[in-house]
């Protein structure tokens, strides 16, 4: 086991796959010579050369479109979108082209590509560089969606995404790039579609994603001190969704709380609640609760941004109020 930062684990995951498979290419804005604006792709240009690691113009439609065309014709491209907010600038390519083409062609066309993107709040960048947009991608049939929270997961899920024959969007947590963690030595590949139970509990299930996961874990720790036993699930993969793990947990704890960084309406937590409500209604002892950013754009100032996104304190208080 080596200790790596989340950002170094990103580079390690890409490198592992480029080493293994010569059809893996990597493009994006400032990703090559500069090693990425988050320094998450340092060294790849030097290691794999300018044919396989390329800086692009600021042309999100062209670069994601190019990744699509390449995926259809024998490459396995990885394309970086510097911020997930920029998905909006190429949303037609992502949602109308990449996601639908296999289906529309009755399976003729392969689409093995990966879009990696820095997601979420915490950097005081304001409303156009801080969104948590996993639910945009989840809502589009034909996209797989993961959001790793640890260095090991980001390496392993990038590797899994590259190997997957379908298009995968990897939402990397901007606020976790500097976080360190153990990453298995040697080849490391995770599985798409598997949630992780991070803490076992009896009284309620907390399902969280991305940077909300460490907060949920911390909240569970505090609740434990008050005698409340919370199970914490890192959802990790929205599509495919590990409903088995989540339903199994809720059946045991009889309560569900989701912690979402996205603004409220149509978040992944709503989908989860609707699945749980439909499939284990009789097991529920209380109303499922969603803790989300309010339905507002992300404000810039540190005081405001911190108040907007679910905090450990808000998670603890909300759960406490609902148990009381």
């Amino acid at each position: 086991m080596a200790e790596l930062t989340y950002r170094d684990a990103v580079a390690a995951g890409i490198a592992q796959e480029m080493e293994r498979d010569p059809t893996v290419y990597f493009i994006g804005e400032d990703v090559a010579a500069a090693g990425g604006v988050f320094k998450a792709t340092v060294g790849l240009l030097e290691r794999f050369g300018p044919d396989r690691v390329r800086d692009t113009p600021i042309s999100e439609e062209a670069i994601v479109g190019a990744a699509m065309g390449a995926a259809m014709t024998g490459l396995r491209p990885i394309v970086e979108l510097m911020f997930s907010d920029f998905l909006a600038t190429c949303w037609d390519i992502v949602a109308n082209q990449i996601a639908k083409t296999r289906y529309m062609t009755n399976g003729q066309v392969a689409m093995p590509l990966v879009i990696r993107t820095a997601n979420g709040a915490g950097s005081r960048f304001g409303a156009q560089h801080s969104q948590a947009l996993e639910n945009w991608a989840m809502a589009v049939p034909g996209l797989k969606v993961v959001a790793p929270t640890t260095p090991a997961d980001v390496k392993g899920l990038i590797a899994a995404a590259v190997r997957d024959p379908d298009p995968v969007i990897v939402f990397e947590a901007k606020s976790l790039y500097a976080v360190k963690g153990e990453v298995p030595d040697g080849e490391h590949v995770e599985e798409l579609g598997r949630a992780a139970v991070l803490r076992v509990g009896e009284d309620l299930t907390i399902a969280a994603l991305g940077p909300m996961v460490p907060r949920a874990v911390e909240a569970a720790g505090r609740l434990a001190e008050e005698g409340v036993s919370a199970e914490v699930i890192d959802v990790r993969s929205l599509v495919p969704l590990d409903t088995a793990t989540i339903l199994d947990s809720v059946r045991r704890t009889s309560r569900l709380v989701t912690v979402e960084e996205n603004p409220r309406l149509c978040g992944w937590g709503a989908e989860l609640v609707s699945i749980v409500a439909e499939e284990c209604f009789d097991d529920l002892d209380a109303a499922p609760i969603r803790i989300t950013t309010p339905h507002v754009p992300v404000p810039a100032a540190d005081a405001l941004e911190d108040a907007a996104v679910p905090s450990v304190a808000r998670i603890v208080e909300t759960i406490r109020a609902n148990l009381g």
Partner: protein
Amino acid sequence: MGDTSTRERRSEAGDIDMETRLAMYRSIVEIRTFEKRAYDLFLQNLVKGTSHLSLGMEAIAAGFGTAMRADDYTFCTYRGHAHTLARGVPMTPVMAELLGREGGLMAGKGGSMHLTSVEHGVMGSYAIVGAHLPIAVGAAWSAQARGSGQVAVCFFGDGATNIGAFHEALNLGAVWRLPVVFVCENNLYMEYTPIRSVTAVPNPAADRASAYGLEPIIVDGNDPDAVYEVAVRTIDRARSGQGPSLIEAVTYRHGGHSRADPGKYRPAEEIQSWMGRDPVPLYRARLSELGVADATLQDIDVEALRKVDEATEAAKASPPPPVDLVETDVWSDGSSTWRN
């Protein structure tokens, strides 16, 4: 518009051998016959959804289709029957797709706007204006990376020259010197609106070429020889690593934009004058002039009709797709499962 360059190309085109010419004649006649039938079937309410015909515009598909190598890539729009047939895709599955039948090219899942036959290099028909230009760039990038010598040819309308994806794709294709040929089929109209009324320059594609360091190329899109010549030149250029080209092929659609649109927004004299430039009789006349026997041409006409008749009957005989196809092939494992 573009008359000089058109005339230039015509004179060079003397070199085209007769086999190639007959192949192009066959192609335009097959497309013409197919498209007329598609229109009839639409009027009979057998073609479901929309359909965008290339009647009057066949020479572009035929010229390029004939010039392309078997493993080259075609990317086209919703107006893609012509380009699909021109790559040798059999008529029956194309017709069956228009009719929404199980025997369709995509078993009915795609419809007339999304014809695709990977086997024939037809990498898709795209219904969002401009979206496929970046995708074609990607296929060219892949060809370059794999050193396969393949070229991507990307067809689009005049209207697509004003959308952002056009600009991004042209620039990226040029910067990376990719083997891609961009072909603007300028038929003077978008849906119902004349392109000149919404474009800052008279030649919507050619007048943009210099913005990407490219040569402006305008060709008579109703002359198969002229199209063929420019296709060979630009595809060669692409294949030999000299990068992309942007071609404006000027043409005209005989009918409306789609479905039952009567195209009434177009002045009668304009239609009249373009009907006089119909590629099918003109090319037939040129071949006759060049000494091709009438019987040879007639055989081609008859054979085209026979193929279209056969495709029509086969398509009509094909059943509707089974409803469980709704939930297949979202993913590579054939399923649409999003959970465990």
